[in-house]
């Protein structure tokens, strides 16, 4: 089983212990943080292991790229800590198990990864995805499994990832455009951190969109809009991608408004926190986040992750704000209609 490449010396030399001192949910000064972190590294008990909300942010806070979050999750698993109730973890473990049912489109060497998210059925069409819209991988056979970071199961990721990578390779895919950045983070951060070789080139869809928009330069009309961005947990694993978003928004004439809960101080969608820590914390996080979005007076609230969309888009709309996905914003810039709509549920009685 691949092991985490973790350098204890980096942590020993670290003065800031940013992984814990910057944590939005645990309040520790540098000295206390150092002590707790050392306990974690040494495999001892630490309250942090229980208190962690699994927001992934410490992975970004570490200035040394030493993978504190992966280390913490490894330790949670070793100690049998359950970040969520056991049945919730069981549900997740079971529902994404590869069973040999391959859902593929008309694959080319360059393909889109839908992850396990149906939202991309609506989103990944039109001029931006011309020639690629049917070159698609979907479902548990190609599922990146990073979600198990929320459930203290890095062993499962390591175990299943080998199968998933092999499945993708067998499809003849050389370049995989990851529409969910959790997949991109798996292939460019998680896999290398555990020394797992990725047999194709992962591309983040922001990078792909920039490429396409440049190719469609004549059709791009600056939108002149202001957006409040909902930054999701998995971007914490690949923080450089946040800058790529800035480049993308610049290209389509969109301003990412400054607000309290963006960039490093972003708040996650909190639905996994609801399942793990209960409704009070989740409600508080969502309220602060939504209040802040509203205060920034954006034209749209911008979503990257479909899971965040599911958690927050309706609540955003209830506040009179307009949710939109990054892909749809780019579609608008080339004169196409947004495709991802709020799902209307008939409340039959």
């Amino acid at each position, binding site marked *: 089983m691949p092991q985490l490449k973790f350098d204890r010396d980096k942590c020993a030399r670290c003065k800031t212990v940013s992984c814990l001192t910057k944590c939005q949910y645990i309040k520790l000064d540098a000295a206390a943080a150092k002590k707790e972190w050392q306990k974690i590294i040494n495999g001892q008990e630490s309250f942090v292991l229980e208190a962690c909300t699994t927001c992934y942010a410490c992975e970004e806070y570490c200035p040394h790229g030493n993978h504190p979050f992966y280390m913490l999750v490894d330790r949670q698993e070793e100690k049998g800590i*359950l970040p*969520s*109730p*056991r*049945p*919730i973890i*069981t*549900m997740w473990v*079971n*529902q994404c*198990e590869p*069973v040999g049912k391959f859902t593929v489109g008309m694959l080319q060497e360059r393909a889109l990864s839908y992850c396990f998210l*149906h939202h991309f059925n609506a989103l990944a069409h039109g001029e931006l995805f011309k020639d690629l819209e049917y070159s698609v991988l979907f479902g548990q056979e190609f599922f990146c499994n990073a979600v198990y970071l929320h459930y203290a199961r890095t062993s499962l990721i390591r175990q299943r990832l080998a199968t998933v990578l092999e499945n993708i390779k067998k499809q003849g895919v050389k370049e995989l455009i990851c529409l969910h950045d959790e997949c991109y983070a798996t292939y460019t951060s998680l896999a290398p951190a555990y020394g797992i070789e990725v047999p194709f080139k992962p591309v983040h869809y922001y990078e792909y969109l920039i490429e396409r928009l440049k190719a469609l330069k004549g059709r791009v009309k600056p939108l002149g809009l202001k957006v409040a961005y909902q930054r999701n947990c998995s971007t914490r694993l690949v923080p450089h991608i946040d800058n790529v978003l800035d480049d993308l928004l610049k290209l389509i004439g969109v301003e990412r408004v400054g607000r309290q809960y963006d960039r490093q101080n972003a708040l996650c969608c909190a*639905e*996994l926190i*609801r*399942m793990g820590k*209960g*409704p009070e914390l989740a409600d508080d996080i969502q309220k602060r986040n939504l209040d802040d979005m509203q205060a920034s007076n954006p034209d749209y609230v911008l979503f990257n992750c479909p*899971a965040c969309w*599911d*958690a927050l888009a*309706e609540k955003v709309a209830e506040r009179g704000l307009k949710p939109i996905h990054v892909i749809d914003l780019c579609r608008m810039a080339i004169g196409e209609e947004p495709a991802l709509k*709020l*799902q209307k*549920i*008939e*409340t*039959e*009685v």
Partner: protein
Amino acid sequence: MIDVYTELTSIVDKDFVSKNREELYMYGRDPGLMPPHEPDYVVMPSSVEEVQAIIKLASREKIPVVPKGGGLSLTGLVIPQKGGILLDMKKMDKIIEVNESGGYAIVEGGVTHGALKSYLLKHHPELRHSIPDSPPIATVVANAVIHGQGRLTQQHGFNSEMVSGLEVVLPTGEICRIGSCAISPHWFSKGPPMPDLSSLFFGWFGTTGIITKLGIKLYPCKKYRDPMLFLTDKAELVPDIMRRLARTEMIEDLVVTAQPIPLRYRGNFYILFYITGDSDEELEFKRKMCWKALRDYFEKREGGFVSLVPEMKAPMLSMPSKDTTRFADVSKGGGFEYSGPIAPIEKFPVYVKKLADLAEKYNLFYSSAARMIDGGHCMMFSFSYTFNRADPQTMKKAKEALDEAAEFALDNGGVMWKPNLDEQKLTMQKMDPNTLGLMMKIKKLLDPNGIMNPGNWEVSR
């Protein structure tokens, strides 16, 4: 010797009387596993007078009569075991009255749940009735006759308990009103404060008379409805979780699902329930109370709520649920049947173990939906197995598994719901002989010629 067909066509328009092979074939079977047996005639009456005339004819000539609604019981209850006349009630499809202030509807014997739901949505959107999770062609009357359950059963008991009056044609041909409507123009009570005679017609599967009109209670239709899903992996915790939720008096329907596929179900019990409200505040309050009721299971990590995304909520909110239909084709071939004992909720762990054991023994796919009844006083627990209709071997295995499940359920405190003939026999064998004697006396008194749905509730000679 009289020509029954000609006699029938003198009562009912000849277009609605048949002795054609293709119709007799269709009316001789149901979607379950009981062997088919064809009627001699199929008739679709359109009024109580026509029903009365048919019954008088049948009574005089001692011809069996089987009334049929949607024919969806799966347990062969309307398979005409001794031939005779099959009365398809679906032409009696009028919704006669909706009494807004009294909160009830009066419907004819063939009105379907789908039609009533649709009518109420259109004309009385503030009222609703208890919709069962059978296909919408299930009739309101037949569902009450079998003591069906629906979406309001957790709060108000069996659908038959929501009945507010009856018009019945007795096996000897008299038209009889039951409940307040026997005395008053208002259909507000099926019995009290009078002797409750309605129970002479529920659970008897048409052996005591034919219900031609029925009053059914309607309940407030809240503006908002939201599903909540709690999971646990320990069967022994399920009864307490059900009980706690019931005792909040905050929840509408509650169903516990146990099945190995789709994979997300494996290893867990899915406790799905609903909260309703007229405002966000009301919903939020109920949501919090339900969380509070189960908080310690959450803290102990033994159970947890699933955050439901819109994609998951949509099928949960569809009414009736389409899950049963989906499950029916799991093993391909479109067959499924369940044995559904009504039992104390504390029996959940032993029943669910038996469910899985039988599936393994007979190599079948299984599923169970346990619906809480009347605030947790009991539950309906379905032992459901699928089979391929084109494969007699899987049908035989499913039948054997169901027979074994029924025997187990009866030995473990349950009472069979809408039992097939085999289950009826088991039930009568187990029943207090004096009770059985009383049942037989009542049946004989009401149906002296033994013409009504013969084969059902009959003691073997």
